[in-house]
């Protein structure tokens, strides 16, 4: 599977007797959105942590662009092109919106060891940052304190920071969480276009969004992938129905 941008092989992690991730193998190919769905407690967050570098798996491997990154810290995975958005916004709340995206641009440039020149005056970083804000539609609130943003705007800012990294793959942890119908629809349209830039591993509860966006879906139940397939295949799968979706009324 050399064409996979991101892949896990037999990823396993247990906490005591609880198998949070049980031999999970999945891959993310260029140009696709691969959604991971599953009921609460299915191990989605644990899986993301292992992919992005927060947790070390007990067994198995994570490959990014064909390189084994299993033991790399999150920071180095980010440098190699993995961009993550958080389920609960992890933003510098006291800073402005612009400063938050500037941080992303700065990280991507890997030039934080400059002590005297104003960061906001660095044209290349600022262009990257402002362009990302424009793409998610936050250009108007660039100078606003992040704590004053609405929940939906914070979700957009999460995505904007990921954009500044110009990544090879996105890992998004419930980007639609807490968005209204209108917000979800807009973000869905945005992600639809984003896959051309880099593939997205999308963990999401919003089934409308998942079915609208996903090229492939993996269903995670009790830490185990019970099915991977296209939207139609997943809809048709009896195993998935039994475990998760429930019979349509």
């Amino acid at each position, binding site marked *: 599977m050399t064409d996979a941008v991101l892949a896990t092989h037999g990823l396993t992690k247990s906490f005591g007797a609880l198998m949070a991730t049980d031999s999970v193998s999945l891959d993310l190919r260029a140009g696709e959105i691969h959604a991971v769905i599953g009921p609460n407690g299915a191990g989605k967050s644990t899986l993301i942590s292992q992919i992005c570098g927060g947790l070390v798996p007990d067994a198995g491997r994570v490959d990014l662009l064909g390189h084994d990154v299993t033991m790399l*810290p999150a*920071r180095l995975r*980010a440098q190699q092109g993995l961009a993550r958005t958080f389920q609960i916004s992890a933003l510098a709340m006291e800073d402005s919106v612009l*400063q938050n995206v500037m941080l992303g641009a*700065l990280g991507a440039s*890997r030039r*934080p060891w400059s002590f005297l*020149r104003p960061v906001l005056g660095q044209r290349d970083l600022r262009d990257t940052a402002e362009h990302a804000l424009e793409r998610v539609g936050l250009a108007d609130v660039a100078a606003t304190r992040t704590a004053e943003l609405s929940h939906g705007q914070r979700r957009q800012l999460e995505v904007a920071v990921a954009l*500044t*990294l110009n990544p090879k793959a996105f890992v998004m942890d419930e980007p639609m969480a807490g968005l209204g119908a209108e917000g979800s629809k807009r973000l869905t349209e945005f992600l639809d276009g984003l896959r051309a830039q880099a593939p997205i591993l999308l963990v999401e509860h919003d089934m409308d969004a998942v079915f609208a966006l996903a090229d492939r879906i993996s269903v995670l139940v009790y830490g185990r992938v019970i099915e991977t397939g296209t939207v139609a295949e997943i809809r048709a799968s009896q195993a998935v129905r039994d475990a998760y979706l429930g019979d349509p009324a």
Partner: protein
Amino acid sequence: MMPERVLNAVVLAGLLAVPLWALVVDEPFTITLATRAVIFALAAVGLNIALGFGGLVSLGHAVFFGLGGYAMGILAHHAQTFTPLAEWPFLIEGTKSMPVIWLVAMLTSGVAALLIGLLSLRTTGVYFIMITLAFGQMFYYFAISWAAYGGEDGLSIYVRNDFPGLNTLVPIQFFGLCFALLCVALLFTALLARSPFGLALNAARQVPARVETVGLDPLRLKLVAFVISGVITGLAGALFADLNRFVSPTMFSWQMSGEIIIFIILGGTARLFGPVVGAVLFVTLEHFLGGLSDYWHIYLGALLLLIVLFARGGVIGLLAGRARLHD
């Protein structure tokens, strides 16, 4: 509310005006008090980079203050007794030259901050406070037991050290020197706050996980901040020893560390002039209330309580409101 820049300018002008007025009316003690405030402010400007920007509540910054003090004390002591510091592997002589002493003070503090930071930054929160406190106590007791340099009694330096072109024994000239260094440190801090490093450090304090996901190392950022912070506080220590022409283990005491934190909290955490306002306020209270009662710390405690309860931004926050983001 007063714009913060205006407030800062007023504070700086006032800090310069008081000793000049004292010079005119011939009150040299007031100039010494102002110098004391300026040196304390410099020490706190240093700590503010770690505590205010980096969120590192160091209860051990007296280590750097004391190292700066002892760097001055030891170098000047050897110079005034005409004994070498070391003869092997090569001859090291004492010195009375301030620039050399400052350099040694800053270098020593920087190395100490690097080592202490490397160990302490593995911890956060209360543990970080405790481990920095522990380092402070280690240095304190080491100084007490170091008989070669006065032990508990400390070291007296008979004549203030030299600075090219100045007579440092004239109070206003020494004040001017300290004031100039404070201005340089403030300018550096102002630039730092707006720099790429400042942005990254600020984020590392608030959301380390985010900083990591953009490919930066929050710990390394904090470590560098801690070193810069220690270097500035170390310089202040060398000046403080020169002001008193005396250095003793109390410069290493945890009370000293606490006082530097108090300057920052009084003035306003993470505000450029917070440490300056805090130090000036502290020295003023110390002088006037200390004249009324030996127990003046009671009033300081009450003031601190009021500020922590009702004015989290310190005096600067009270007068200038929240910090502005950027233009």
